[in-house]
């Protein structure tokens, strides 16, 4: 059997010849999966060269059809040999698989976009950004919580812990835990993020599996927070971004920079769901409710080995990352001053500052064009395959450094932060 494919704009044509039996059905499925992974949302099959199709082959086609339904793409057989046409007729699948494909060559983009982007930019060679105004004019407010500066030297106590709710239309990140109160969470404080009515946390101590909470009915995610930030409000803008070739490098800092530019602001909250090309980050290993045994800082060598784990090289490639963060052009000052202890330069000597946490899920394709935030987050948690939550950072050491987290494509909700309050317990 032979499988060849040809891209034509948004449409991918896959040509198959030979026998489509159980021996080869897997190969076809793999080719189609790969096409979806690479961003195709419309596939047309040419089965003129297929002399025989077994139930396994039919099964592969139906599975692919459903997969494309799930991402609102289109999948159909364009042309087929008489043998294949007959089998598909007999199995009653004509309507599903053989009907006139919705998207023909040349008219692929018009039917499935419910909204045109307000503008489209090619920021640099090899990358594109499309921006959609979803709630024009909206801004967010931001509140900082707790004392981040105490981490290296102090043991956090009950009176420094706050119970914070994260309903829809809020987002947050920091160090926290799921539990009734401080005592209940004392051994588990670690990185968390919250967005779209959900929260995910990486526990420290004996448990290593990240945990999550989701807003259902009257239940609202609740985090016992040591420190961090919480933003409230709706995001005015949705930005789709994609790397077009290997030259384009979508690093965390380049994305943050571009999102600030597109949102036309110097301080913004941002949430993005993106296919990871490898993440660089760190996670806390032990709950900071105890101090370092030695008098030194928790973050000094060699003590740091017991407190932090980091990724010496890019980790979690080909996964889907849900990234929540705040970025600022220049160190936070003036009205943004309370954010200063929580933000760090995103690259050495750069004016760009930020704080980002990422939750990692197994890869799955996501929908084209306009996405809804709460729905997207809920869909991510549905499969319950949360792999990790980590604090993203830039391993900027010369030679040995792992560099920055990079992404392939994704969608970002971004909004200017109009008001910052905090510094209180």
């Amino acid at each position, binding site marked *: 059997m032979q499988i060849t494919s040809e891209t034509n704009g948004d449409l991918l044509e896959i040509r198959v010849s030979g026998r489509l039996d159980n021996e080869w059905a897997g190969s076809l499925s793999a080719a189609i999966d790969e096409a979806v992974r690479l961003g195709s949302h419309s596939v047309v099959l040419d089965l003129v060269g297929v002399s025989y199709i077994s139930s396994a082959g039919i099964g592969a086609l139906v599975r692919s059809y459903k997969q494309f339904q799930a991402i609102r793409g289109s999948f159909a057989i364009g042309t087929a040999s008489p043998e294949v046409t007959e089998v598909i007729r007999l199995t009653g699948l004509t309507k599903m698989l053989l009907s006139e494909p919705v998207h023909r060559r040349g008219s692929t983009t018009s039917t499935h976009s419910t909204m045109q982007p307000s503008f489209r930019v090619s920021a640099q060679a090899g990358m594109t950004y499309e921006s959609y105004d979803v709630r024009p004019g909206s801004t967010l407010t931001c509140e900082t919580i707790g004392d981040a500066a105490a981490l290296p030297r102090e043991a956090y106590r009950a009176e420094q812990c706050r119970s914070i709710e994260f309903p829809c239309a809020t987002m947050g990140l920091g160090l926290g835990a799921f539990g009734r109160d401080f005592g209940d969470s004392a051994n588990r404080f670690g990185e968390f993020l919250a967005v779209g009515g959900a929260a995910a946390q990486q526990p420290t101590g004996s448990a290593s599996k990240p945990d999550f909470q989701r807003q259902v009915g009257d239940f609202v995610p609740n985090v016992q927070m040591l420190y961090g930030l919480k933003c409230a409000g709706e995001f005015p803008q949705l930005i789709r971004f994609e790397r077009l070739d290997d030259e384009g490098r979508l690093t965390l800092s380049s994305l943050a920079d571009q999102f600030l530019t597109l949102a036309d602001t110097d301080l913004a909250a941002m949430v993005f769901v993106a296919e990871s090309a490898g993440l660089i980050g760190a996670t806390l290993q032990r709950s900071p409710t105890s101090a370092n045994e030695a008098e030194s800082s928790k973050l000094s*060598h060699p003590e740091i080995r017991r407190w932090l784990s980091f990724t*010496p090289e890019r980790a979690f490639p080909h996964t889907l990352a849900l990234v929540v963060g705040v970025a600022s052009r220049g160190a936070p000052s003036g009205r943004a001053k309370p954010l200063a202890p929580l933000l760090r330069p995103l690259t050495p000597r750069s004016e760009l500052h930020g*704080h980002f946490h990422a939750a990692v899920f197994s890869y799955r394709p996501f929908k084209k064009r306009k996405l809804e935030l709460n729905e997207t987050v809920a869909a991510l948690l549905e499969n319950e395959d949360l792999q990790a939550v980590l604090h993203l950072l830039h391993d900027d050491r010369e030679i040995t450094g792992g560099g920055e987290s990079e992404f392939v494509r994704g969608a970002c909700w971004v909004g200017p932060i109009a008001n910052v309050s905090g510094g209180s317990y």
Partner: protein
Amino acid sequence: MLDIQQIAKTFHAGTPNEVRALRGVDLKIEPGSFVILIGTNGSGKSTLLNAVAGSFLVDTGRLKLNGREITRWPEHRRAQFIGRVFQNPFTGTAPSMTIAENLALAAKRGRTRGLGWALSSSTKNDLRERIRAMGLGLEDRLDNAIGSLSGGQRQSLTLLMAGLLKPDLLLLDEHTAALDPKSADQVIRLTEEFIRRDRLTTLMVTHSMHQAAHLGDRLIMMVRGRVHHDFQGAEKRRLTPENLLARFEEVRRADQLDETAAEMLGRQYV
């Protein structure tokens, strides 16, 4: 019971090749427990096994086996209480001697061997039954030279010989690592059978995450000459090969967290 108290061993001390193979290992192993030892290369797991067997004497610390202090005993004296199977199937048996002769030697291990009949006919019949039970079809080949057997068959026989006298302690040093997957499975099946039947106190070194996760009732993970983690009871039963790999990944990451990384993290981590 095996009681290992704070043993340490440094090879080539005072030379550029100095290796601190064991850096203070404390371990109590209850009678009848089946303990798996894992660790990366150079973590000291095989050294620990050899220290117990007496291949060398430890620098500091004490070793007790069923109340007997064996710290200064030479290897051959410990052999009357300790059975061993090595990684190399060619170790542990005498290739030019027959299966029966090898078994006869094993039956007298640690005792004085005179010139009398090595095996009484009843012992020989008993051995034949045990070999038959292994299901390798060797029961009719008792007079063949061991050298004519495959690696898997030899390792199965070595295992039988090591466990023949129901030793106080059975040491298995990656005893399936040199075998093909099918033979390895077979030897592992026999290992489990023998250990369960005679409730042998066992210490087994392995590189296989699958074996480490699925065998034994306790698992010791060694890192740089120390016990890094001791999985027992429910924690051991819940272990999967993936969990173990994740643990090793943690260790690897900690190793990479040097001063420059600490400086970078100290600057950036909030």
